[in-house]
């Protein structure tokens, strides 16, 4: 598939992705280049607001169809079951302790909003006509994996009874979920009229903000890699192959549940992506004995760059081949 390869190269050469590479490079060389925390948090808020709002406006154009329900159901099921596969792989192959394996599995069952952003930019450039409602699917896929992980961790979950109620509230009302869903609803409600007001803010500005944000993600990923103390070959292999397994599971389930091919391409990218914003905070609360040096290094340091640089065009090509 030489065409896929040249498209992959093209994907590699967008400014946003190259700024990620610049951040990675600067971080690995220990440059003192740094994006202030407050800026990184604000850029993340902006991205979720823009992604949610755009998705809402697009959904208001098309209306909520059966396609949405197919994609949503597939996404939720994937988020519940991917952690099970990840957990057993981490336990048996990488010989990780139960708690860290469960926490890491939660990351792989959940999703990365920025991988979604980069992936949909790529699909748009290719003219793949996925639905605007896929933003809502992102939000649906953020949290189920956390519940699976808590079951997998069993008695090791912290804080016993008292905390459980709190935790559920904290997970469901997680800031990124609320902002993504809220912006989606605002986009859906205000439609074209709303877009007329926010057009410049959410559209042409988006690429630039994404570039700055990816610069920071490169720097953070590099620090994770540099400071990783507990990395082993099986763990690295897991972080590189789990996305492929998730992608395969996603394609199979999409075929089964009749997800339309364009949406299935987005789902494959989401399934392959791993969380690094919402899930880590939930894990610090629920599974504090799990080692963040493992799950953040794998999701942010290895899987995210892999997806950004190689995965996205690959998953798209496979979906196009398999599902047409």
């Amino acid at each position, binding site marked *: 598939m030489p065409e896929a390869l040249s498209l992959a190269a093209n994907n590699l050469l967008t400014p946003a992705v190259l700024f990620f590479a610049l951040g990675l490079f600067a971080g690995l060389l220990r440059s003192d280049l740094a994006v202030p*925390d407050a*800026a990184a948090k604000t850029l993340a808020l902006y991205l979720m607001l823009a992604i949610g709002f755009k998705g809402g406006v697009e959904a208001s154009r098309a209306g909520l169809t059966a396609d949405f329900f197919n994609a949503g159901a597939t996404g939720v099921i994937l988020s519940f079951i991917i952690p099970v596969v990840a957990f057993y792989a981490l336990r048996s192959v990488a010989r990780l302790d139960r708690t860290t394996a469960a926490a890491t599995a939660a990351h792989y069952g959940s999703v990365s909003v920025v991988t979604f952003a980069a992936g949909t930019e790529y699909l748009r450039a290719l003219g793949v006509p996925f639905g605007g409602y896929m933003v809502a699917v992102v939000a649906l896929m953020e949290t189920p994996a956390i519940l699976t992980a808590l079951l997998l961790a069993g008695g090791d979950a912290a804080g016993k009874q008292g905390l459980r109620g709190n935790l559920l509230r904290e997970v469901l009302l997680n800031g990124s979920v609320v902002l993504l869903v809220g912006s989606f609803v605002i986009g859906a409600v205000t439609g074209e009229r709303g877009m007329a007001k926010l057009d410049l803010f959410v559209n042409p500005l988006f690429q630039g903000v994404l570039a700055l944000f990816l610069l920071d993600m490169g720097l953070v990923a590099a620090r994770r890699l540099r*400071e990783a103390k507990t990395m082993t070959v099986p763990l690295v292999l897991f972080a590189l192959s789990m996305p492929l397994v998730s992608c395969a599971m996603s394609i199979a389930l999409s075929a089964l549940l009749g997800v339309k091919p364009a949406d299935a391409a987005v789902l494959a990218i989401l399934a392959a992506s791993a969380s*690094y*914003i919402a899930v880590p*905070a939930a894990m610090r609360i629920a599974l*504090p004995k799990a080692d963040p040096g493992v799950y*953040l290094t794998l999701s942010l340091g290895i899987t995210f760059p892999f997806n950004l640089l190689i995965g996205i065009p690959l998953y798209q090509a496979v979906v196009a081949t398999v599902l047409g």
Partner: protein
Amino acid sequence: MQTVRRRKLEIIVEAPVLSRVEAILKSEGVRGWSVFAGVEGHGATGDWHSEGLSGAEEKRLIFALTSNDAADRVLEKLVAFFEDYPGVVCVSDVDVMRPDRF
């Protein structure tokens, strides 16, 4: 200057569980405290840096002036808490004015 001896608690906890420690302080009768944000640190479990992406490893410092008794009760509770969660705590003697506040 007329001062009175009280105790100062300094507690470092992870940001996601800050509110749980604050609940302990409140329940044990500590009547005031202030919270500060760390920028990085080093410990048994490696290094962390506040970074704005995940924020999961960010640390907070709780600074609380209180009575000897309340400090003791808080420590008692924190022993159990720190079995589950990472963090450190220390107590020291300080002189304060307006001792009835603490």
